[in-house]
C-alpha cells in the first residue's frame, strides 16, 4: 500500500503488455495516460472545489450554503455543470469568432499546464523540469492572454475595459509573485521543484521566510483576479467583465479555470513554502506524501477563500500602488537581505541562520507596513486628494 502510483503504473503496463503492445511504445502510452489523468483529475477537482468554497464562504457569512442536492449539497455543483452544458452557446454577431472560441481554451490550458511540474508525492510528477520554479509564472501568463483575447473578441466595451484592467493588474502583480518565488529558489539553490522540496527537509521556507510566502499568496490572488482583487469582473462597474458575452460551457471553462487556478496557487505555496509532500514517513510511503500535499494545499487554499469571503474590493489605483510601491520594493529588499544572510552565515549553526532569516523577514515586513501607513492615496486623476474632497460622501 506504500506506493499507489508505482503499483498503478505497473498494473497498467502489465495489462498493456498482455494486450500485445510493443515494448518501446509503452513509455509513450504511459506518458500520455499520465498527462490525461492529471488534466482530467484537475478539472474534476473543480467540482469539489466549488462546493468547498461555497460552503466555507456561506459559513463565514452566517449562511448554510448549498444543501438541497445530495447529502450536504455535495451534488449541487454537478447539477450546475449539467445546466451550463445544456445552455445555449452564444457568439456575438460582430465579434471575432476564432479568438472568441480560442480564449476559454487558452485560459484552461494555462492552469492545467501548471500541474505538469507540481510534484504530488516523492517521485510522482508529470515532468521533472530543470527550471520548474520559472515555468510556473511563465505558464500562468497564458491566462492573461486568454483574458485579453476574450475581452477583445467579445465586441463589448465592458469586456474590453476588463481586458485592459487585466493587462495592468496581472502583468503588474506577476512581478512581486516572481520575486517572492525567488526567495525559496535562492535558499534551495535550484530551480527544480523536487530540489526545493528536498531542501525543506529540516525547516519549511514558510517559517523562515513568512513574508515571501505572504507576498506570493497576495500577488497570486491578484493574478487570478479573485476577491478582493476581482476588478476584472467588478459587477457594479463592468457587468461581468471579460466574460460578459460568454454563456454555457464556455463561461463554465472560465469559471473552472479560475477555481482551479486558486487551488493551484495553494499547491504552489505548499510546494515552495510548506515543504510539499514532506512529512513523517512520506519518503517511505509516497501515498502518505500525497495526503500531506493535499492537506497543505487545502490549508493554503483556505486562506484564499477566507480573504475572498471577508475582504471588500480594492480600488484599482490603490491596488496598483500597493503592488508597485509596497510589495515590489519589499521583495527586492528581502531578496538582497536573504542573499547576504544566506552567504554570510553559511558556516554558522542551523538555528542561527534560520533565526537571522526570520528576523530579516520581520524587519522588512515592519518596514513595508510602516510604508503602507505613510503612503498617500492619490485620487484617480493623480496627485493627492484635497481634504474637502475626502470628506464629501
Amino acid at each position, binding site marked *: 500500500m506504500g506506493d499507489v502510483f508505482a503499483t498503478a503504473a505497473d498494473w497498467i503496463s502489465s495489462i498493456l503488455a498482455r494486450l500485445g503492445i510493443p515494448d518501446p511504445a509503452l513509455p509513450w502510452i504511459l506518458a500520455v495516460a499520465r498527462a490525461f489523468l492529471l488534466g482530467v483529475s484537475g478539472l474534476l477537482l473543480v467540482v469539489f472545489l466549488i462546493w468547498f468554497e461555497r460552503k466555507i464562504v456561506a459559513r463565514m457569512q452566517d449562511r448554510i450554503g448549498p444543501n438541497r442536492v445530495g447529502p450536504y449539497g455535495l451534488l449541487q455543483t454537478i447539477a450546475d455543470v449539467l445546466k451550463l452544458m445544456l445552455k445555449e452557446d452564444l457568439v456575438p454577431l460582430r465579434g471575432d469568432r476564432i479568438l472568441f472560441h480560442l480564449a476559454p481554451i487558452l485560459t484552461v490550458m494555462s492552469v492545467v499546464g501548471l500541474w505538469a511540474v507540481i510534484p504530488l508525492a516523492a517521485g510522482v510528477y508529470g515532468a521533472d523540469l530543470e527550471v520548474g520554479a520559472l515555468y510556473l509564472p511563465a505558464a500562468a501568463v497564458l491566462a492573461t*492572454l486568454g483574458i485579453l483575447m476574450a475581452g477583445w473578441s467579445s465586441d463589448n466595451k465592458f469586456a474590453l475595459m476588463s481586458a485592459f484592467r487585466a493587462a495592468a493588474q496581472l502583468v503588474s502583480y506577476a512581478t512581486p509573485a516572481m520575486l517572492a518565488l525567488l526567495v525559496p529558489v535562492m535558499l534551495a539553490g535550484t*530551480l527544480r521543484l523536487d530540489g526545493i522540496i528536498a531542501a525543506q527537509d529540516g525547516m519549511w521556507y514558510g517559517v523562515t521566510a513568512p513574508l515571501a510566502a505572504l507576498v506570493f499568496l497576495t500577488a497570486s490572488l491578484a493574478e487570478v483576479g479573485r476577491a478582493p482583487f476581482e476588478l476584472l469582473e467588478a459587477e457594479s462597474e463592468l457587468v461581468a467583465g471579460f466574460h460578459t458575452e460568454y454563456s454555457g460551457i464556455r463561461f463554465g471553462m472560465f469559471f473552472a479555470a479560475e477555481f482551479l487556478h486558486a487551488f493551484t496557487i495553494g499547491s504552489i505555496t505548499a510546494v515552495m513554502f510548506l515543504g510539499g509532500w514532506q512529512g513523517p514517513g512520506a519518503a517511505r510511503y509516497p501515498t502518505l506524501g500525497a495526503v500531506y500535499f493535499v492537506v497543505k494545499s487545502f490549508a493554503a487554499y483556505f486562506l484564499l477563500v477566507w480573504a475572498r469571503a471577508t475582504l471588500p474590493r480594492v480600488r484599482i489605483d490603490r491596488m496598483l500602488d500597493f503592488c508597485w510601491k509596497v510589495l515590489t520594493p519589499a521583495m527586492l529588499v528581502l531578496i538582497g537581505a536573504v542573499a547576504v544572510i544566506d552567504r554570510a552565515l553559511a558556516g554558522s549553526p542551523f538555528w542561527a541562520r534560520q533565526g537571522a532569516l526570520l528576523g530579516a523577514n520581520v524587519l522588512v515586513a515592519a518596514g513595508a507596513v510602516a510604508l503602507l501607513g505613510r503612503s498617500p492615496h492619490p485620487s484617480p486623476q493623480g496627485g493627492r486628494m484635497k481634504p474637502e474632497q475626502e470628506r464629501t460622501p
Partner: protein
Amino acid sequence: MTADQILFLVFAILGLGLAAASVALRNLVRAAFALIGCLFAVAALYALLEASLFVVAQAAVYVGAIAVLIVLVVMLTRRELREKATQTHRYAPLAAVLAALITAGLAAGLSRFASFARTMPALPPDDMVIRLGDALVDPSGFLIPFEAVSVMLLSVLIGAVFVAGGTRPGRGKG
C-alpha cells in the same frame, strides 16, 4: 527521419506560417496573436534542443511581457484597424529584390557552414542553469557583456521614467 527531425519540421513550418500570417493578416489583433503563436513555435524549437531555460524564458519574456504589451497597444489603437487598407507599398518591388538578395547571400553563406551535419552533442548531466549562472558572473566568461547589458537596461529604464514623468501636469512645461 527521426522523431526529432519530424518534430523540428512541424514546429519550423508552424513558426514560419504564423510569422507569415502575422505580416499578411488584415486584422491587427489577429496578426498580434499570430506573432505570439510564432514565438511559441520558437520556444518549441528550443525545447527540441533541450534548452529548457530558454524555453521558459522565451515564454515568460516574449509571450508574458512583450506580447501582452503588443496586444494591448494594438487594442488601444483600434481606430487604426483599417481592414481595407492596401498591404503593399509603392516600393514593394524594390523590397522584394532586396529580400531576394539577402536570402541569396544567407543561403550562400550558410551552405558553407560545416556544423549542419553535426548531431547534437550529449549534454553533461549537471544542472545547466547553475552552469549558465556561473558563466554570467565569471570574469573569463560573460561578466563584461552581462554587466554592459545591465547598465544599458538601467539607463533605458531611467530614460523611460524621465520621458514619462516629463508630461505630468503641474511640473513646469509638459
